[in-house]
């Protein structure tokens, strides 16, 4: 709180500017304080387990952000999470709760894996965009269907998207072990391996694939869409109350289908990168749970698509350090899950401080 005060009350600027600064400052300061509080609670938990919190946090730092290798580890894990979080955050702008992004990732990956066969002879410049487009179309249709069902039939999108994600995983398994199976894949049924030129490589100078850059770009573009375009403006208006928006004559149906489909397309793109940058074929490993982690990230980011970037990097960092913690401290793998649960609880609880803190700061400044 003291930091927020000094940030907002320092200069001799107008009250309005000060209030704006205070709002920005609290958006940074409150989550950071909450992060520290969550870490402190977890430290107490560790003490009850007879383990040293100092050692633990040092290892988490080392494993997540402490070296070039650790940063690349963290960023590699963040790449699919950026895109899957958008699948939640974009529909959320309309007040929709979509929790089935996993299905779009899986089927997007299968689409890319299936199309890679016929495109085996195509140059990368043609093949890769086509694979990405196929993955995005399939992902977009899958999540867009939840939106369409919501608009046309009044089916709740939360349950529809969850059901569709389980159906998607079943379809993936059936396809990968049936018609799309490469007979040579033996004990891990997969589609045929991608041709070399259809593999997506790492970004220059680092051991992180291009999915990270595209994920960040997608987050930024989504922010521009929401904050700087008429569609985004309409979505923000409609998001308050869909029924009222419809009465006002806003194109609610197109907004719902458009935003769910766009979210699904980004999740499908995550599947494309899993296949082309990591696995080299489509198989059951596509259902890795990124879609579910994306829900958490989107909510932690308060559905702000720019905030998704740091939140995804934070969460991926915890994941990246998990192995080191297991190996060095003989703690179970679930330890980092407990840490994440506590930290995220604290960050989400801290939302109650917004506004209160601003009032406090603005009051002092005036």
């Amino acid at each position, binding site marked *: 709180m003291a930091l927020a005060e000094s940030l907002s009350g320092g200069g001799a600027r107008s009250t309005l500017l000060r209030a704006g600064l205070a709002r920005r400052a609290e958006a940074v300061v409150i989550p950071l304080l909450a992060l520290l509080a969550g870490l402190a609670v977890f430290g107490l938990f560790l003490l009850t387990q007879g383990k040293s919190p100092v050692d633990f946090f040092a290892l988490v730092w080392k494993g997540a952000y402490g070296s070039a290798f650790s940063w690349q580890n963290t960023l590699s894990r963040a790449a699919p999470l950026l895109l899957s979080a958008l699948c939640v955050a974009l529909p959320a702008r309309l007040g929709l709760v979509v929790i089935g992004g996993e299905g779009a990732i899986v089927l997007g990956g299968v689409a890319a894996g299936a199309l890679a066969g016929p495109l085996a002879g195509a140059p990368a410049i043609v093949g890769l965009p086509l694979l990405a487009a196929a993955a995005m179309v399939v992902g977009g249709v899958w999540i867009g269907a939840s939106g369409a069902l919501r608009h046309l039939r009044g089916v709740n999108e939360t349950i529809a998207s969850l059901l569709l994600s*389980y159906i998607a995983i079943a379809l993936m398994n*059936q396809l990968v072990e049936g018609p799309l199976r490469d007979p040579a894949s033996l004990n891990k049924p997969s589609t045929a391996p991608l041709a070399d030129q259809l593999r997506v490589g790492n970004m220059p100078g680092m051991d992180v694939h291009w999915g990270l850059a595209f994920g960040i770009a997608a987050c930024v573009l989504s922010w521009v869409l929401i904050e700087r375009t008429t569609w985004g403006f309409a979505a923000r208006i409609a998001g308050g109350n869909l029924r009222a928006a419809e009465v006002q004559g806003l194109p609610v149906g197109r907004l719902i289908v458009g935003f769910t489909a766009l979210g699904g397309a980004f999740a499908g793109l995550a599947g494309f990168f899993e296949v082309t940058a990591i696995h080299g074929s489509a198989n059951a490993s596509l259902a890795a749970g990124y879609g579910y982690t994306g829900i958490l990230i989107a909510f932690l980011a308060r559905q702000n698509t720019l905030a998704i970037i740091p939140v995804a990097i934070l969460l991926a960092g915890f994941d990246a350090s998990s192995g080191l913690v297991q190996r060095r401290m003989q703690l179970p793998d679930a330890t980092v899950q407990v840490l994440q*649960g506590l930290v995220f609880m604290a960050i989400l609880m801290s939302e109650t401080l917004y506004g209160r803190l601003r009032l406090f700061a603005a009051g002092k400044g005036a």
Partner: protein
Amino acid sequence: MTTGDIGLWGVPIAVIGGAIRVSTPILFVSLGETLTERSGRINLGLEGTLVIGAMTGYATAVLTGSAWAGVLVAALAGAVFGLVHGLVCSLPKVNDIAIGIAMMLLGTGLAFYFGKPFIQPVAPNLPAIPLGWWSDLPQVQAALNVNVLFLIGLALAFAMHWMLRATRPGLIVRVVGDSSDAARAMGLKPAQIRTIATAIGGAFAGVGGAYLSLYYPGSWNEAISSGQGLMAVALVIFARWNPIACIWAALLFGGAGALGPALQSVGVTQGYYLFYAAPYVLTLGVLIATSSPSRAMAGAPGELSITK
């Protein structure tokens, strides 16, 4: 033909048996969530509560030798999780869906952390009532081997239906769920009532978890729940916040889940992944068939964030 082979009759019997066996945890979680949501809150974290219930229930049964003590402790652990969710969400501006997801992570994390030493030991199971005694067929006897918790779940569904419709506590929950302002005008404290409803809902989910680890499949491991808790929360929307409809939803889901293995056992062996998806496809189908744009949220509590 071998003895005891009843051919295609095995499929409906297996579906009935599966409906009874698999539906119980879904029923308990759905009932708990129905109460919570009728009070105007949504707790998406019951998957974590289910797993915590499974672990604490199993651990207690191992340590005390009593499966019922396990159920009790699972209910208490679930209530604690519900209480935390309820209290945290009583703070202004805190998003109940997001807290639920974080608690799902925390719950499964704690369950796996403390559950490691209990994977190996064998705990006593909950008893079942052999309602199939009248039949000579072992398949029928097995299908109608009904666990007490299933019957308790059925009774609780009817009790909750009656409670919500015809009692003063039920009226209070409904008023709080439909309008905070109206509730305050009546002198009620919405946050307090929602917290109690979430705690009770958590206890239900904890019992559901104990059923998983102490009866069916009846052991503790980290793959014990394959998302039943999350699915059960979603099924509340499907059941339109009606406890009786929760029974049908849970039975439909459990019975459809038994279809895959049963069909394979009578020789329908192709495309089993698609048969395994039957519960999801059927639920979606019923949902689409019974919804309509005009009454999109019929029966939805007015204060529910997910349906606003």
